[in-house]
């Protein structure tokens, strides 16, 4: 038996390309006598690699479409619908994050080559994670993704908070991974295999029969609940998002969430929630509490990044509703809703955090609402785009964010999750308030003479006029996408739905 067939290698080719490409900046640096190469070049290498991987990924997907099963490496990974959606999104998000990293003061400069390397490897982990059809590859994917992230945060130019964030993330992340791994062990012991396909088939039965298996499932879920920051495993989120350099926050809050939820969703395909009410109830409670904890938590924050961190917690709550729907048997519809929400959420949050990154003047800058006072009068387009993003996050139509919520709510109601949906709806009212707040600061703060109050940060022409073109592009592009896809949401929906 061959270790790997040619077909396997083709399937894994995006991963290889990613890894190989990730080495180029490092090699350039080494060849350059360890002198930091031009950042722009490093970024271009990263971007090129990502684009190549993206291309390969799509190619592989369409190649595999003709085959009966999309599995490779003895069913360890597969390039199926979930994988292709999640991986392309993750790759694109990584691309945007690279743009942000190139512009941001806490990431640009020394060690940028290493950063590109780590980013690409983190994406590599994500790809493995979303392709994983085996608990082992799943775990490996998580770890590759996370380890690279720990390092990325750790090498920020900001010295104090980023280190603390890295340590926090590392300790808690490893701790949660350990729990997840223990879960895998229990599952393995009772199932006799680590194949997710088998797991989803037999989970329903085994949960009832074997308590240890149930414990394993719960541990596995908890590992994911941690990664996607759901209550009460969300506490790290705000601290780490705040401490990490903003581009990394953008990367984490979008790509990591995307990959983790995609993998999380896979487990629920077996729809074991139907027969296990207690588990269903636990997840519903977690969803409802998360939405409120996130939205209400954001309510009392002034630091934009921290606020967006809490908001991202709340959004995880909404996505969990979709996951529950999958677990209740509406696999395809639920999966589409989840993926739709993830894609839309990623665009919005990437744009919003790009805006924060744009506003930062130095690596230690912490953007609070005060910084954006009167921004609309100095930077109308950016402020307008930010407004679009915020309104979308609030879920006000016709912005895209609304449709994400709409599909999730529709599916949840279809599955009879009336109370959860009601709470989610009310939570989004609280949520609306937090997204209105930055808008108030950008547009509406005036002094006694009715003149706009414009913060120093917003006035700073030197920073804003000449630099951070990439960041600006990301902001504008995401806002534009939000509006366009908002109206053409059906296209996106069908695009996703056809893959799943």
């Amino acid at each position, binding site marked *: 038996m061959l270790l790997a067939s040619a077909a396997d290698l083709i399937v894994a080719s995006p991963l290889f390309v990613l890894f190989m490409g990730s080495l180029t900046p490092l090699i350039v640096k080494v060849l350059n006598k360890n002198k930091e190469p031009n950042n722009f070049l490093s970024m271009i290498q990263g971007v090129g690699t990502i684009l190549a991987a993206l291309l390969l990924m799509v190619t592989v997907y369409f190649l595999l479409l003709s085959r009966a099963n999309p599995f490779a490496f003895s069913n360890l990974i597969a390039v199926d619908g979930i994988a292709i959606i999640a991986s392309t999104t993750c790759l694109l998000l990584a691309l945007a994050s690279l743009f942000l990293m190139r512009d941001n003061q806490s990431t640009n400069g020394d060690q940028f080559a290493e950063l590109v390397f780590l980013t690409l490897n983190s994406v590599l982990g994500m790809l493995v994670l979303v392709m994983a059809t085996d608990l082992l590859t799943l775990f490996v994917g998580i770890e590759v993704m996370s380890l690279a992230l720990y390092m990325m945060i750790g090498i920020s130019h900001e010295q104090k908070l980023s280190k603390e964030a890295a340590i926090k993330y590392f300790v808690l992340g*490893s701790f949660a991974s350990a729990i997840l791994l223990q879960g895998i062990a229990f599952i393995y012991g009772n199932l006799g295999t680590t194949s997710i396909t088998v797991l989803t088939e037999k989970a329903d039965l085994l949960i009832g029969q074997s308590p240890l298996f149930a414990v394993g499932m719960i541990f596995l879920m908890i590992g994911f609940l941690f990664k996607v920051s759901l209550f009460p495993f969300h506490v790290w989120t705000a601290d780490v998002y705040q401490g990490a350099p903003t581009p990394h926050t953008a990367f984490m809050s979008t790509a990591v969430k995307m990959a983790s939820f995609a993998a999380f969703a896979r487990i629920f395909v077996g729809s074991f929630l139907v027969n296990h009410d207690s588990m269903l109830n636990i997840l519903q409670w977690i969803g409802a509490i998360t939405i409120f904890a996130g939205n209400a938590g954001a309510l009392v924050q002034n630091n934009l990044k921290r606020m967006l961190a809490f908001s991202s917690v709340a959004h995880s709550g909404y996505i969990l509703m979709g996951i529950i729907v999958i677990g209740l048997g509406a696999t395809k519809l639920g999966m589409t809703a989840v993926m739709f929400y993830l894609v839309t959420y990623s665009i919005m949050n990437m744009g919003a955090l790009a805006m924060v990154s744009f506003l930062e003047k130095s690596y230690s800058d912490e953007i609070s609402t005060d910084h954006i006072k009167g921004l609309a009068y100095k930077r109308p387009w950016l402020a307008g785009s930010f407004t679009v993003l915020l309104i979308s996050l609030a879920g006000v139509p016709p912005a895209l964010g609304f449709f994400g919520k709409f599909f999730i709510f529709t599916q949840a109601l279809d599955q009879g999750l009336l109370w959860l949906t009601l709470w989610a709806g009310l939570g989004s009212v609280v949520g609306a308030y937090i997204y209105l707040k930055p808008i108030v600061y950008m547009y509406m703060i005036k002094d006694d003479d009715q003149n706009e109050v414009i913060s120093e940060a917003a006035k700073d022409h030197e920073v804003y006029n000449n630099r951070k073109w990439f960041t600006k592009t990301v902001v504008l592009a995401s806002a534009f996408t939000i509006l366009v896809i908002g109206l053409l949401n059906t296209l996106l929906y069908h695009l996703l739905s056809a893959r799943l």
Partner: protein
Amino acid sequence: MLAESISEIGLGHFLVLSMILFITGMLGVLLRKNILTVLMSIELMLNAINLSFVAYARSLNQLDGQIIVFFIMTIAAAEAGVGLALVVAVFKRFKEVNIRFFEHLKG
């Protein structure tokens, strides 16, 4: 069942031992103040998991579990490397290994 478990050391014993180790590691993470000890506790948890994998593999009469352990050991090593690197970086700057030092980000 009882007689059997007494007479022969079986899966249950290994699992109990593994859980004891796992919980010890967990308590270490929860209670120890030195960040290095916390890192070691995490390693301990991973090793406890290794033990259960091996035990399961043995009881299932499979090799998969054993192989997984290798993977885990590799990852654990990588994790330790990353963790130590971070700790060293922090220590170099702040001369601090107490876990309670990392409380600036909060609220």
